[in-house]
């Protein structure tokens, strides 16, 4: 009885599983005699722009022309009270020059894609607003966000990452 039942179970299960299979798709009956050279289109160009976009200074990314970099907390774009001295110095330097001031926003490597560039821009704008509120003409300042593309430090330490969450300032020449 047990044997019969087990046999019946196996047979029924096999039927169930077989029923779920699907047939091979219909194929063209005869051989397709096709021979051609596939159009994998022509060779693409290579452009060298090494002459553009060089860094500024030996570290390639710190503030220059007497300005001082401003640092930010993780994922934040508000100015802390600790930045007051640096802001005051930058107002002093900026007010003495007739050149335009380039304000560069930077981020650490933990953001992604477009969001990190927007975060860098918010940081640059926070510094611009602080300088403008202290008398530097808004039309004299130009903002650029470099996102995570311009690190000053690449060691895997908190202090290193903190150096990358910054705004650099320099004169446009």
């Amino acid at each position, binding site marked *: *009885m*047990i044997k019969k*039942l087990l046999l*019946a*179970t196996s047979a029924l*299960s096999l039927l*169930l*599983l077989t*029923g*779920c*299979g699907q047939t*091979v*798709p219909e*194929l*063209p009956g005869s*051989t*397709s005699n*096709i*021979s051609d*050279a*596939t159009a*994998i*289109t022509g*060779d*693409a*160009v*290579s*452009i*060298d*722009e090494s*002459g*553009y*976009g060089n860094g500024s200074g030996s570290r*390639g990314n710190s503030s220059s022309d007497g300005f001082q970099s401003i640092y930010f907390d*993780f994922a934040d774009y508000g100015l802390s009270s600790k930045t007051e001295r640096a802001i005051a110095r930058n107002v002093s330097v900026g007010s003495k020059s007739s050149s335009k001031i380039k304000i560069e926003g930077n981020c*650490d490597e*933990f*953001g*992604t*894609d*477009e*969001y990190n*560039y*927007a*975060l*860098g*821009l*918010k940081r640059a*704008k926070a510094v*611009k607003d602080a300088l403008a509120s202290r008398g530097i003409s808004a039309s004299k300042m*130009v*903002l*650029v*966000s*470099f996102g995570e*593309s*311009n690190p000053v430090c690449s060691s895997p330490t*908190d202090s290193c*990452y903190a150096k990358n969450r910054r705004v650099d300032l320099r004169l*446009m020449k």
Partner: protein
Amino acid sequence: MRYLLLLFVFSLHLFAVDATLKIETDVEHRSRISLEDGSAISNGKFFKTLLADLKISGHFLADSRQHKGDFKSSFVAPALKSQEYILKYTLTQSTGTKLRIRLLKASNGAEVFKKSYAIPTTAKAPFLAHKAISDVNDVLKYPSISWINRYVIYARYTGAKKSEIILADYSFSYQKDIIRGGLNLFPKWADAKQQSFYYTSYAGDIPALYKLNIYSGSKRKIASSEGMIICSDVSRNGSKILVTMAPDAQADIYEMSASGGGKRRVTFFNGIDVSGKYVDNESRIVFVSNRLGYANIFKKSISGSGVTQVVYHGRNNNAVDAYGSKVVYSSRESQKSFGNNTFNLYLTSSNGSGTRPLTTTGTNQFPNFSTDGTVIQYIKHRGGSSSIGYINLKSKQSLLFPLGGRKIQSLDW
């Protein structure tokens, strides 16, 4: 006897569950297929490319052993009779690359299809593999997998304020520098034929959006913006683009014509609005915004003012792509300020329904739909190494190809 009857019912239930699972995970019949190399000099890398193409198609159960055999013969070795098809091929590489293929029925050796391919270069050999498998797929009347023939364009950092833009096949076996030097980022295909792409250049005082033809080298400035300018999406016919820019030092999403004219501001928010992607027949966009205090996915119509939250899960969802009404996004699922965080990909719809995870481990970012919306491309970082990954949404097949060490900035497919 009662226990035996219970066992009988339980057995039926088990088999029924398996059968249901089989249907769910194997929606279409997959053909069992073996590859047989008839080349004078065997090329293991080329075999692996063919094998990967078969696997990611989702339409084949590919035998991963590399068999050797006479290309011209229709003899099928007894060991391969259990397959449905044998794909015989011969690859010749001297000054150029020549590939010949024959598809045989394993049961009787009957030739179903044959074709030869030739290109005057050896570097682009992976494209011949992709084209051959795409053709075999079409001959067997499976849904198109023409996305495996497409180029990937991506930017990677090479140093501080330095990057390069590179052209690759989907498996990254073929790679060619398109722009070396300078800081050029966010490449985005401009047309369905992949003749031109948009990218952001930092060569001037402020960022500028350019369009470059990869064959002629002709380059045209589309627009520039103080702060940032990035092309986030291109309409299906290539006539309109979504751009994140900041003319008033405020990152918002704009729509403009492919030539840069007819600029229209789409989002208005005093925070961060980025990564606009067309959805719902291009009448709306999904985008990333921090309007709730953290990065998340929202939706709005191109012309209306109302904004709807799409994703109600996660505390940092900062990358998104869309196809039709399908939406894929990356969500940070660990709270470490620094170091490797877990980012997983989720698939949802533009109304936020049907959300399901696509990945469960590692750092998974930069999700991109294929041109037919059936496959998702992404970058995976895990255990100190990076890979380019593909998830076939229909077959649930996934593949990873290892990448070099340099950090990828963005990519498009």
